[in-house]
């Protein structure tokens, strides 16, 4: 049993603690990114780390996402374990090629002989009243390209555990941090994180009548909806995916078998989204046990709106409730 030494870190503080732990435990690890040194990163995720570990291990790079993610690939080749911070979700697009054409293919290009230790941390998602291209949810892009892992924590503890697992797994990981959860609530976290399981979703609320599948900031939305449905007499399970690639198929199929109804919630646009993949999986492998069609509550198939309309696009507990009722009454 891990000893709880200090109560109450929020998600971004948990990331900071996790990064500090990695830098302490692994001398080959180092952090690269824009404004992550004295400034501590635009979200302060690396606050204090440069002072602790020095400017050679917490490196302020020039503004060059493709350049520093490409350089991180080269570092990994020579035995280092770089962890890269991209300032905002959409800022990773200039480095798309380095991630999907290079990092993702490295193990395959070495016939499985050598992995690539590379974690790309990206604050993602909407709900923070940010300018254009600061609120995207790019998980589908990266989970569609074989060779990458896509990991999304939803809470301070899962952030620390998944980060520790990501840095040691040997596959390049796109680590999406739900930025609107950075400072939403605290959780007791252990003094030192144990690596979590990168291939298992987590049941964060038990239930028998319906499962809401969510990840990142949508877990909170799903939990709120589940609480309200409880008042209506429905017992709702909430499954926090944690890993978008690979998907925990067993947990999804178990949800279908045990609750008969599976609803998926994500911020990303609906078309070709994670919800589509899950619905297809259930159709192929669990159609006989489903008591209702799998519905999706998602972002819209449009650029993420400017701040005045962002609540129109973000899935809300109300939208989840409406979809859940349809499924429960089906």
């Amino acid at each position, binding site marked *: 049993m891990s000893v709880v030494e200090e109560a109450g870190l929020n998600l971004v503080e948990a990331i900071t603690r996790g990064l500090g732990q990695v830098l302490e435990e692994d001398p080959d690890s180092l952090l690269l990114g824009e404004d992550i040194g004295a400034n501590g990163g635009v979200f302060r995720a690396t606050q204090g780390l440069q002072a602790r570990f020095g400017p050679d291990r917490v490196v302020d790079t020039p503004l060059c996402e*493709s*350049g520093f993610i*490409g350089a991180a690939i080269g*570092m990994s080749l020579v035995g280092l374990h770089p962890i890269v911070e991209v300032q905002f979700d959409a800022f990773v697009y200039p480095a798309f090629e380095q991630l999907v054409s290079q990092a993702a293919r490295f193990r395959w290009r070495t016939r499985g002989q050598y*992995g690539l230790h590379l974690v790309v941390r990206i604050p993602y998602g909407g709900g923070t009243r940010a300018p254009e291209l600061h609120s995207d949810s790019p998980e589908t892009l990266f989970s569609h390209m074989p060779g990458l892992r896509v990991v999304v924590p939803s809470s301070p503890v899962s952030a620390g555990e998944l980060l520790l697992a990501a840095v040691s797994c040997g596959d390049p990981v796109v680590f999406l941090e739900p930025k609107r959860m950075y400072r939403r609530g605290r959780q007791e976290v252990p003094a030192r994180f144990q690596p979590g399981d990168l291939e298992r979703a987590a049941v964060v609320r038990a239930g028998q009548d319906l499962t809401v599948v969510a990840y990142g900031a949508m877990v909170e939305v799903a939990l709120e909806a589940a609480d309200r449905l409880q008042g209506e007499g429905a017992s709702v399970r909430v499954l926090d995916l944690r890993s978008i690639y690979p998907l925990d198929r067993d947990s999804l199929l178990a949800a279908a078998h045990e609750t008969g109804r599976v609803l998926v919630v994500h911020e990303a646009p609906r078309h070709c989204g994670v919800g589509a993949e899950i619905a297809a999986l259930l159709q*192929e492998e669990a159609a006989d046990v489903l008591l209702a069609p799998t519905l999706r509550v998602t972002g819209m198939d449009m650029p993420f709106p400017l701040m005045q309309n962002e609540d129109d696009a973000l899935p809300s507990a109300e939208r989840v409730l409406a979809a859940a009722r349809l499924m429960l009454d089906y």
Partner: protein
Amino acid sequence: MAGAPGAELLDGASTILGLEPDSMLAALRLWPRELALELFSAMARLRAFDERAVILQRQGRLGTYPTYFGEEGLQAASVLALDSRDWLFPTYRQAALVTLRGCPPLVPMLLWSGHPGGWHDVMRYRVAPICVPVATNLPHAVGAAWGSRYRGGDWVALGYGGDGATSEGDFHEACNLAAVVRAPVIFLISNNQWAISTPVSRQTRVTRLAEKASAYGMPGVRVDAFDVFACYQAVREAAERARAGGGPTLIEAIGYRLGPHGTADQPSLYRPVELDRLWEPMEPLRRTQLALVRAGLATEEELDRIRADCAEELRAVGAALEQVPPVPIEEIAATVHGSTPWGLLPDGLREPSWKLVEHR
């Protein structure tokens, strides 16, 4: 030559290119015979691979193949001027240079035949997998070199590119980042003046690519790509500077793409044959051979023998290609991730929990 489109390229280059092998002689007289012959042999091995690959492609045994005819001296010099601990980051046009680090030529030949056995052992040879989109390998070279500084290592890294690559964003980001962090890296730009059909004058308004180095605060060096000894010297000096903490160097090796871009390319569509003829005398293997003979370092017969031996070795590689059994797709799919071998999911129903009811 006057009036031929692209002829001005030759004028621009002539300031450093000697058109006769005699231009190589003054320096060559000071060279140790052994090293001079080693360079020649490396060039001959690369040439033999290239010639055999084109033949195999014509026989339908390889897919599209990007010949590097004319770049052998530059490639051989870059490998031999560095130590085995130094890292190389090739593009598709340097796929065979791993053979100069001890990899059997069958391996890169398999790559062009589309067999996964064509992926060489990256760590063993310290040669990265080839990068197909040009310039994408340059940030990797920066990272490997940066890692050397970080680790207190003494290796340097070298990334290859062409004139076309210098127009890419990754070229800029790599050069700038390397200079900022003083990474011990060498950017070796083979300015062969053509990116498929696009002449270098359509890539940049700068006539000397080496000038781009000054924008990043690093030395820029020009060298005759057809003078293997000059290339060796340039890479050696850049590596010494890098090892001594002097940071990156941009080397512009001025040459000419003597062949097509690849086996699917037809240069007569976009450049005059007369221009090719002007450059033909620069063909580096023959030029080096003439220089070595005139310098009294070897005889024609000795050098012909080296070339014949290399050709013979590669002939055997062509035969061996057929003997390599195909790899089952399941085995290949299992090499994508470290653990769960995803990518193997069959179409449709895997183990359906339900049975199709007989509706009809």
